[in-house]
């Protein structure tokens, strides 16, 4: 196995005695697409900031590209591309100038930056907007420009903090396509998200984090296999009857979850369980058999209560 580009051991960050990141371990291999999945406040962004060498750890070990961010912040940052949660494009500069100026921050020669800027505008499908004001771009375009900007120094690792939050479905799919191309070119991607479809689309491997700790780790398929059943049968009997029905079908499937609006029966064979249900004289208003998803894993591991 090639040497990992990011290695964290017992990585911890506390703010005023409260642990935002609580002793986590993970490794990221070169060229891998690694995801941090978790609810708001789980410690994803804090982890990303430490990996980005803009936040110092409280304790534990962290090496990025073999270097300790404590002592080699600028060296590490020169090899990273950062896409922050909120776009922080330079609103005083036009689209192409955003790339030129950012490239100069890395001390790259003017001609080289100009060449890369044009290629990146093509890549981000913004070539025709080179002279536009940043303010006039749509949300999706701004996001693509932020990603293009993060690539100006040809980073070895691209860090993306919730890359598609707030974008419409079209814009998200375009962005995924661009990120997938980067992955094909061998760029290591590290991303945080709370969208399961995004994690399934983009991540080779991911960790589910909650309250600063790692709850599970593996590929999306592995996580589903380990933490959920193959299929899920969803049935609705009306909000007043769901709980009552649940008592009558104990033993069906591997696990039953009662939600206010429906019952979830985690099972290896949803259709068979649906037949078993009707044989007991129970006739749901609606029923649905579907494959288990990462969302089931996520909710199982991090709970259904609202986190704010």
């Amino acid at each position, binding site marked *: 196995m090639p040497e990992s580009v990011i290695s964290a051991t017992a990585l911890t960050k506390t703010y005023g005695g409260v642990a935002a990141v609580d002793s986590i371990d993970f490794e990221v291999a070169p060229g891998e697409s690694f995801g941090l999945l978790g609810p708001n406040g789980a410690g994803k962004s804090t982890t990303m900031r430490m990996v*980005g060498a*803009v*936040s*110092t750890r409280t304790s534990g070990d962290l090496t990025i590209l073999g270097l300790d961010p404590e*002592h*080699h*912040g*600028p*060296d590490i*940052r*020169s090899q*990273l591309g*950062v896409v*922050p949660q*909120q776009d*922080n494009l*330079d*609103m*005083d*500069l036009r689209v192409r*100038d955003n790339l030129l*100026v*950012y490239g*100069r*921050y*890395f*001390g790259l020669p003017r001609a080289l930056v100009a060449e890369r800027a044009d290629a990146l505008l093509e890549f981000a499908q913004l070539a025709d907007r080179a002279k536009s*004001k940043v303010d006039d771009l749509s949300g999706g375009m701004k996001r693509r420009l932020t990603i293009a900007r993060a690539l100006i*120094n040809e980073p070895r690792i691209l860090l993306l903090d919730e890359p598609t939050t707030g974008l419409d479905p079209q814009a998200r799919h375009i962005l995924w396509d661009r990120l997938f191309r980067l992955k094909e070119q061998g760029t290591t991607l590290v991303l945080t998200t709370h969208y399961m479809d995004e994690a399934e689309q983009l991540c080779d491997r991911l960790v589910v984090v909650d309250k600063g700790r790692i709850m599970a780790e593996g590929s999306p398929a592995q996580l589903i296999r380990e933490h959920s059943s193959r299929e899920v049968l969803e049935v609705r009997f009306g909000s007043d009857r769901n709980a009552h029905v649940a008592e009558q079908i104990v033993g069906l499937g591997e696990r039953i979850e009662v939600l206010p609006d429906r019952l979830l029966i985690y099972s290896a064979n949803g259709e068979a369980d649906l037949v078993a249900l009707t044989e007991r004289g129970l006739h749901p208003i609606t029923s649905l058999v579907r494959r288990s998803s990462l969302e089931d894993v996520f909710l199982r591991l991090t709970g259904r209560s609202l986190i704010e």
Partner: protein
Amino acid sequence: MTAVRAQRGALYAGNTRAVIHRGLLATRSTNYLVVFSGFFEPVFYLLSLGIGFGALVGTVQTSTGAEVSYAAYIAPALLAVSAMNGAVYDSTWNVFFKLNYAKLYQGMLTTSLGPLDVALGEILLALLRGAMYAVGFMVVMQVLGLNLAWTALLALPAVLVIAFGFASVGMAITSYFTTFQQVEWVTFIMLPMFLFSATFYPISVYPHVIQWVIQALPLWHGVELIRGVTTGALSPMLWVHLGYFGVMIAVGIVVATRRLRALFLR
């Protein structure tokens, strides 16, 4: 030894020019009317008080004993004010916005730039605005015949020093601000400093205690420095004034750098 070098490496990438390049490119989208309003303020004072009011006053004795026309007395003070205004407007209002709203420095510090590159670049840009105001003002002075000695040429490096001092301290103070009201306080302090720092009359009119307070403030040193060179009254005190600004520059840069580090690299 390596630790020291690593420490310095974390603060400074030797790439201040990239920050200045960004600043100059960004001025293309600025509103020049707003930029130049700061320049005209001392010019209007010079025209109204120097020319108009000066006709009633006649001549004034400078702190080194020379007799000069009232307009020639206040012109160097207003030149110092000009340098101060440009540097302070830029290093307070503009820096505050970039720090808290545009998130510019946060973005810069995710690259290989260090906090010293950013602080120094922004301070030099503020200095540039102060220098632009001051050079414009010097042209007005020359046209009105208020540069009384060849040493007035020395006012050019002198205004750079003054603008540098105010820009450094301005940026350092602004890095602590979290609301616009706090930025207003700077404006509130600058007005009395502008009016009372031997700008329009010698400070010998005040009791000693007040004189000491004024002599502790930066503008008085700027005014005396410039007045010395434009009226040709050079004295060893000029070194004290220069030293005062030297300290402002050094302290401002150190504090601004530390603050950027504390804000964005912790």
